[in-house]
């Protein structure tokens, strides 16, 4: 089964990547100035207390030892314990990560769908008025900082029109999905960039595929335009689109940090920023590695989609 083997190979490569990323992250966090003990104990500290705290957390061990310890427990699903809150990292970040993932996933899907629409509309007739209008708007949207867009959205939809909530308050014990209205503005703010950026790339892919002989032939055979696009043109753009989608996911996990702050969305933003401030190694490593896994998974999926959609790579000539 070549497909199974292909997937297995790619997963193996992805695993290696994630291991490497974990090591790089560990090193990067290692060189942060100060340490968690000092950050936590704050002003009340004596040197002895500091040393004791460091010893308790194992910070006096060499970095390699700590990394290996971390790695071994990580492989068992234990990402360690937050220095600051004392909770297991997995417990501490599970909910924010889940909430952020909801936001990113919805934004990514919205971005992709609209970017496809934009890409197809503009890419089918490059240089047309519609194309220039869409591409021009995309240019502007990409150029305006996202927190400005978010702020304007709040002013308009929440404070002036009062149709959508300004702040993403999640019901107690619930999730953002229980109150979908709180997702709308953050998603618009996030997706606006996604649509513009991804749309430009998809537009190029569509314009390229649009000149392929099979597409022209399908048109000249009198096939209705939607079918031409759907059956003949779009399949050729799938690999590129899948790649764009993976980039989108990786990018959205970055920009969501800013957007979450604007809307006070209970996601990873707070966790990350306070972990950096408090030098909470375990949380940083944990968040970093989980995000890396999501990103790698996104690229892996894109890669597989790109492969599987192409019968030449999926099916061996019999």
């Amino acid at each position, binding site marked *: 089964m070549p497909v199974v083997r292909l997937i297995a190979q790619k997963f193996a490569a992805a695993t290696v990547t994630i291991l490497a990323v974990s090591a790089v992250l560990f090193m990067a966090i290692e060189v942060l*100035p*100060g340490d968690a003990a*000092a*950050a*936590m*104990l*704050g*002003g*009340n*500290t004596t040197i002895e207390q500091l040393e004791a705290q460091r010893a308790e957390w194992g910070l006096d061990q060499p970095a390699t030892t700590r990394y290996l310890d971390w790695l071994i427990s990580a492989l068992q699903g234990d990402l360690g314990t937050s*220095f*600051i*809150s*004392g*909770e*297991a990292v997995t*417990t501490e970040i*599970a*909910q924010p990560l*889940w909430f952020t993932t909801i936001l990113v996933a919805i934004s990514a899907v919205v971005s992709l769908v609209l970017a496809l629409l934009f890409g197809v509309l503009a890419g089918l007739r490059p240089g047309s008025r519609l194309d220039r209008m869409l591409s021009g708007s995309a240019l502007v949207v990409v150029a305006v900082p996202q*927190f400005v867009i978010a*702020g304007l959205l*709040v002013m308009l939809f*929440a*404070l002036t029109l*009062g149709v959508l*909530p*300004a*702040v993403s*308050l*999640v*019901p*107690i*014990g*619930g*999730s953002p*999905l*229980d*109150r979908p209205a709180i997702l709308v503005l953050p998603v618009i703010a996030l997706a606006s960039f996604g649509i513009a950026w991804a749309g430009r790339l998809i537009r190029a892919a569509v314009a390229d595929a649009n000149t392929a002989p099979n597409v022209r032939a399908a048109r000249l055979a009198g096939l209705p335009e939607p079918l031409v696009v759907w059956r003949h043109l779009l399949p050729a753009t799938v690999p590129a689109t899948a790649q764009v989608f993976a980039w989108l996911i990786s990018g959205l996990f970055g920009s969501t940090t800013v957007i979450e*702050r*604007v*809307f*006070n969305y*209970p996601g990873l933003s*707070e966790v990350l920023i*306070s972990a*950096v*401030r*408090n030098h909470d190694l375990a949380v940083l490593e944990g968040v970093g590695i989980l995000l890396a896994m999501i990103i790698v998974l996104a690229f892996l999926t894109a890669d597989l989609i790109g492969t599987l959609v192409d019968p030449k790579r999926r099916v061996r000539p019999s």
Partner: protein
Amino acid sequence: MGMPQTPPPSTSTPVLSARRLSRRARTLAACGLATVLLTSACGSADATDAEADILRIAAADASGTNGLDPLAASAGASQMVIRHLYDSLMVLEEGQYRLELAESVEPNEDASEWTVTIRSDAVFHNGDPVTAADVAFSISALASPPSNRVSVYANVDLENIEVVDEQTLTIPLHRAGADFRESTLVVYSPVFPAGTTDFAEGVGSGPYRLDSHDDQTIRLTAVEDHWRGTPTVDILEITIIPDATARLNALKDEQIDYAVGISATGAQTIADSDAVTLHNGGLETAFALSFAMNQQLEPFDDPRVREAVRLTADRQALVDTALLGFGEPAADVVGGGLPGYSEAVTARTQDLQTARDLFEAAGVTELTLRAGEILPGMMSAAQLFKQQLAEVGVELVIDETPADTYYAELEKLATHPFQAFYYANRPAAVHLAAVTVETAPFNVTGTTSQYWQDLAEAQTIVDDDERLAAFTTLQNEFYGSGGDLLWGYAYQIDASHPRVGNVTISQGVPWFAAASIG
């Protein structure tokens, strides 16, 4: 957009604190997560109870905890939750020291041992009466790690606390402490059932009991027939919103009814609005903002330089610019407007000529200020002060440090002669005893051993009036030659829906038990 309000790094409220939740709490959290994953709301937040008055409050929090655990709570939302869930022995309310759970707190003749009697009608939310044994347990717990208030109770001889009867206990001290009430019990004394190790249920004897909660929001319901009377508001929903702008937006959008702490800019924006009411906490919840000079380090070991710096400041201008007028000039000693403040302490007025002469005499032409945006407006103030110093021929170099590492640089905190700093406004006696003593973590004003001795002596004076007089002298001394250029008080401005009224301040946080919802 404004920075989230961060709380003061005073001894009694360490900004950052660590503690470990019990195993049970983790299990609960895990269950909570499972619930979340199934996206089935276990809380009743969405259940609209037509009968009940709900007050939705948003605040920032410094501790990263939800306020159920009195050993981990810090300033902000968690403190507010503690205040409503638990009764304390004593509190500072409306500018007064008040007995709450305690019926009396009396010293022996040399103030080395205190006898506390508690009221008999207080009942925990689980139905058990509050006893002296509970108080003894609570004090011991607060005084031992992992509590973050260990330093408040450092002087209590825990081993020898004695429960005399159901309502009475004696608390011996290591050193005589005549100011035990204000410097210890008033600072932090919530009481919880003896034997409590897991605070997930939040069992206290306060006017509200825990209904439900998650990481972000806590829902409290009123306790009927509380000894203070039944609270006027049936349900409090306290949500942690770190960003001041977001809090205000949530309020404007009517997602919440009361925002604790909004930015000066936000306050100015809505000053004329009918849709929102501003609540100015006044001096009781204010932060005292300072440029602290270390008297032990050059050039501030020269009292002329300290005086010159204090005379250079145009305090009103600093308040108007850096705080947009939401504050008032301060007089170099913390505690303005609060009990025991010396009448002799008044804000210095700018006197450039004298300042110039003093600087010249001391030969100072350049100063370096370590500053960061530790509170909104601090950097503006530093910049404006730089310009004011320039008028007297002194160049101020601003060494800017990011707010989030400001307190982490312990070395610099201890050795930098001139730094931006701020304190919670507390009664002068409490402040001086906590901040300017030898053991204080941030002795940024570099108080001397002679001063410490005087302070320690004052703390042992049992007679209230005499002790007050001694502290007044200390204040006057600190005012005359101390190391703080305490240039202003920044009011904490809350905002609410206009229908919310009668919110008072208790222990530095808004008190909603008697609030009215029109």
